[in-house]
């Protein structure tokens, strides 16, 4: 059952990403990206990391996608921008892709060698994460809230409407 689900979700993920790259329609692209994020979330769930699965769905499929869709709505391109096909960009990207493939292969090989069947204690559990966040990482956590206030105030002061401005 688990294996079947894994392959199903994996297929869904890779398929939707491929569809996203190949499609020219921005709305389709965005929806396919949501699909791939959601199936990635499912994969995390299969790996016994329920918290990361939930975060993946909430943050990526939820928050970040809303931003994407906002941008698509505002820019409102009827047709996608035709990509300029230059020989050197294609060569460069092919080279980089091969490089990435080798890198991934090495990474997988290294990971497989170090894993010996048994999974460790649940690192990604919400309890453990919460404990760390409010003990060891309390100070960075609090600073992050200051950072968010600064970003909010900055964004608002730059775009808000003044009384005399139309």
């Amino acid at each position, binding site marked *: 059952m688990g294996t079947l689900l894994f392959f199903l979700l994996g297929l869904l993920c890779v398929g939707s990403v491929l569809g996203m790259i190949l499609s020219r329609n921005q709305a389709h692209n965005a929806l396919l990206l949501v699909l791939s994020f959601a199936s990635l979330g499912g994969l995390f769930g299969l790996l016994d990391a329920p918290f990361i699965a939930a975060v993946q769905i909430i943050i990526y499929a939820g928050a970040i996608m809303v931003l994407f869709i906002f941008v698509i709505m505002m820019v409102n391109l009827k047709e996608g921008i035709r990509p300029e096909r230059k020989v050197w960009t294609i060569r460069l990207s092919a080279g980089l892709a091969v490089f990435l493939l080798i890198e991934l292969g090495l990474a997988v090989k290294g990971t497989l060698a170090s894993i010996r069947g048994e999974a460790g204690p649940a690192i990604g559990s919400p309890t453990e994460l919460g404990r760390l966040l409010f003990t060891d990482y309390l*100070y960075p956590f609090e*600073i992050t809230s*200051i950072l968010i*206030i*600064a*970003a909010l*105030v*900055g964004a608002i*002061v730059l775009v808000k409407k003044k009384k005399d401005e139309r």
Partner: protein
Amino acid sequence: MNNLAALSPLLCVVLGALLVLLLEVLFNKENKSYLGYVSLAFLAGGAALCVRSWNKLYSFFNGTLILDNLALFFFLLFSLAGAFIILLSLKYISDQEANHGELYSLLLLALSGMMIMVSSPDLLVIFLGLEVLSVSCYALAGLKRKDEKSAEAALKYFLLGSFASAFLVLGLALLYGAAHSMVISGIIEYFQAGTASKTMGLIGLGLVIVGFAFKIALVPFHMWTPDVYEGAPTPMTAFFSVAPKSAGFAVLLRIFLDFWGASAETEFVFWALWVLSVLTMVVGNLIALRQTNVKRILAYSSIAHAGYMLVAVLAGDQSSLVFYLTAYLFMNVGAFAALIGMSKKGKEYNELEDFAGIGFKYPWIGGTFAVFLISLAGFPPTAGFLAKFYVFSAAVRVGLVPLVVIGVLASLISVFYYLRIVVAMYMREPSPDREVTIDQENPALFLVLFLCLYGVLQLGIFPGNILTIIRMAVSFL
């Protein structure tokens, strides 16, 4: 000593920022000066708390926040810079269509970010503090919303700043992966221990240095500086040129305190910084020669000064670096204050031609500006001379003679463009088609001018007291 009191100066400043926001919403008056006074009060409160914590070595959050004397000294320096900038902004923002009360709040938040940076040995916390500082600065650069240049400055600062932050984060990730520690002492131990390959840690450290070099505008990571400094509202430019730089150098000082001479890798980092320092001093000063806008001249001059400060980092001499930063605060804020004085409602005079004959027409602004420029150039009896003297003599003591020779030559070049402004003010006739009239009813501005003048002369003639305090501050490290 683990004590909640360690948080008090920081909390005071953040509280001030939030209160200013609240007051702005509640009262929403057209005249925003009262918000400035409220911010000043909170800065003063924070400074008083700093003075009370002197020599107490408070710490909190498992030692990720340590109020040693160096941190406290920088807190006081930042509070002083913040107070100067607030005083300079009081009239400027209503005159130049940047009348947002949030300015004071953002300024206080930026100050809190810098305080976070200088009071932590943990690179993660330092990074977060840097982000608080940068995010506030991006918004501050764009406060003149109707001005295209200001918008350009904000966007440019934001894009390149985010880019630099990305470098910094990647570098931190690599460093953590290699050294298994985010604390500066742990990273130094990693570099000193064993003979295993340290390539990953070195790449990480390199990326961290690149990130910081962006923020403190070292050549070749300085491209954003002139445009941002020119476009941003002038008091904010003064802030950018002084405060983030001091915070960045304070962090570099902590990182490289025990770093030099440990192993072959540190040698490599040393020479990389050596090259950066030479490039910064030479390129910054050479490009400044060709500028005709005074704001841009001061921007390039601030780049060049970062090069001199890097010499102090390379020499491993903390007290001369801290003294340089202190002197630089007074002379640079003073110079920008004079520049802000050259304005009236809706108009700023920043071109070199506008300064023709100013020395006789407006003797106070012209005279103080001349003193600050002479100090920036490094003539006695001003603070700029002693600062350069201490840095260069410290470098000679550790045998960095070629670097010092280049530094002295570079500062000789700089004399030309500083004196060019002085010559324009005193020896050039104002051209009849350029009418320059400025609004002199700005007591806060003159207060800043005279305080800076006092600082420049006090540090230049009787530096004893401040040197004693600085020695006390660095002796704890």
